[in-house]
């Protein structure tokens, strides 16, 4: 039991622990009046312009794609290879959970520091384990995972070959009395070759 109880809801932005739609809390039922919103916006603008230096740690949501399309593309290709730990069946690129947002922001920061993809993957693995990788590395603990399907297939093919071989070696069983009788009839009638239709056995 933990705060990641309902993966589906979480991945859609619902936070069960906060009991609200985290991302959309500003859009809940009663909206502030237009005037209030305008005032708020103006205030926000004022605050932003006061601090001329943009500080990346303020960013909560993904930054707009247009800001640095190359980096976003790199982030996406990297995040596609990583599993979101909150929504375990979603990639880090697709997940909308809070942790995924944080991690994407962190990856962006690492990219800005000039880290390579390998270094960023190592950053993730050192914290969350091989489990974050959709393609786990081949090592002693994962060899069964990698070779298992092939081993199973080999066993299957082996069994199939064995069965086929044994079947071929099996002697024909002697015909039963009924078959014998039918055979007699067929043999008797077979002088004109096309006179009888082939019996269905």
């Amino acid at each position, binding site marked *: *039991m*933990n*705060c*990641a*109880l309902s993966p589906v809801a979480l991945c859609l932005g619902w*936070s*069960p*622990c*906060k*009991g609200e739609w985290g991302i959309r809390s500003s859009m809940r039922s009663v909206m502030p009046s237009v005037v209030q919103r305008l005032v708020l916006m103006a205030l926000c603008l004022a605050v932003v312009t006061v601090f001329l230096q943009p500080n990346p*740690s303020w960013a909560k949501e993904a930054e707009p794609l247009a800001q640095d399309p190359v980096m976003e593309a790199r982030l996406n290709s990297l995040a596609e290879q990583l599993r979101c*730990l*909150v929504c*375990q069946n979603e990639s880090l690129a697709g997940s909308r959970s*809070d*942790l995924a947002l*944080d*991690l994407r922001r*962190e990856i962006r920061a690492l990219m800005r520091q000039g880290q390579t993809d390998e270094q960023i993957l190592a950053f993730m*693995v*050192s*914290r*969350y*384990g*091989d*489990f974050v990788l959709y393609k786990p590395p081949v090592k002693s603990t994962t060899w069964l995972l990698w070779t298992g399907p092939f081993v199973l297939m080999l066993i299957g093919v082996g069994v199939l070959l064995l069965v086929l071989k044994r079947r071929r070696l099996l002697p024909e069983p002697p015909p039963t009395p009924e078959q014998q009788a039918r055979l007699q009839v067929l043999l008797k009638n077979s002088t004109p070759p096309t006179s009888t239709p082939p019996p269905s056995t």
Partner: protein
Amino acid sequence: MKAKYLLPLAVFLVLVGFLAAGLKLNPREVPSPLIGRAAPAFTAPYLIDPAVIDLAVKPNAEARKDLAPMEFTPQELMGKVWVMNVWASWCAPCREEHPLLLALQRQQVAPMVGLNYKDQAAQALSLLQRYGNPYSVSITDTDGRIGMDYGVYGVPETYVVDKQGVIRLKHIGALTADDVQRKLLPLIAELNKS
């Protein structure tokens, strides 16, 4: 000849066995790569002024020398077995394990560090006031940066760190009385001996 017909049944039973075992596994319990590694260093602001709580932990002056008065670093607990509990006021399962943490604190098993994860100080404090404070050290991780270094992904999480500062246990999700009796307490007792 009979055995041949029992084979599919045997295969089926094995499959059922695997599926039954799979049902019991918790997919959220991902083995942490941090076990057996040094606890990541950090400095965190206190949620509660340490002077206010009767600290079972005497701050290590050497580790504190570069720190601001309201900052904590795990270095201060070097040489002690300690427990770190990651929690938040918005986290319902945290409240489930809260009585267990309070009991642990009463027994003075180990210094308990409470890392308040991605939370608001006012809400966190009011919760501790209402339900009791199980932590000998209360620190905050507002942006989740420390949590990231500890691989936190499902609050609450509980860590046990040994005297050498190595993480020995990571428990994901709320602790149960069973977890405390079977995992936490024996491990702490064992680590305290060595």
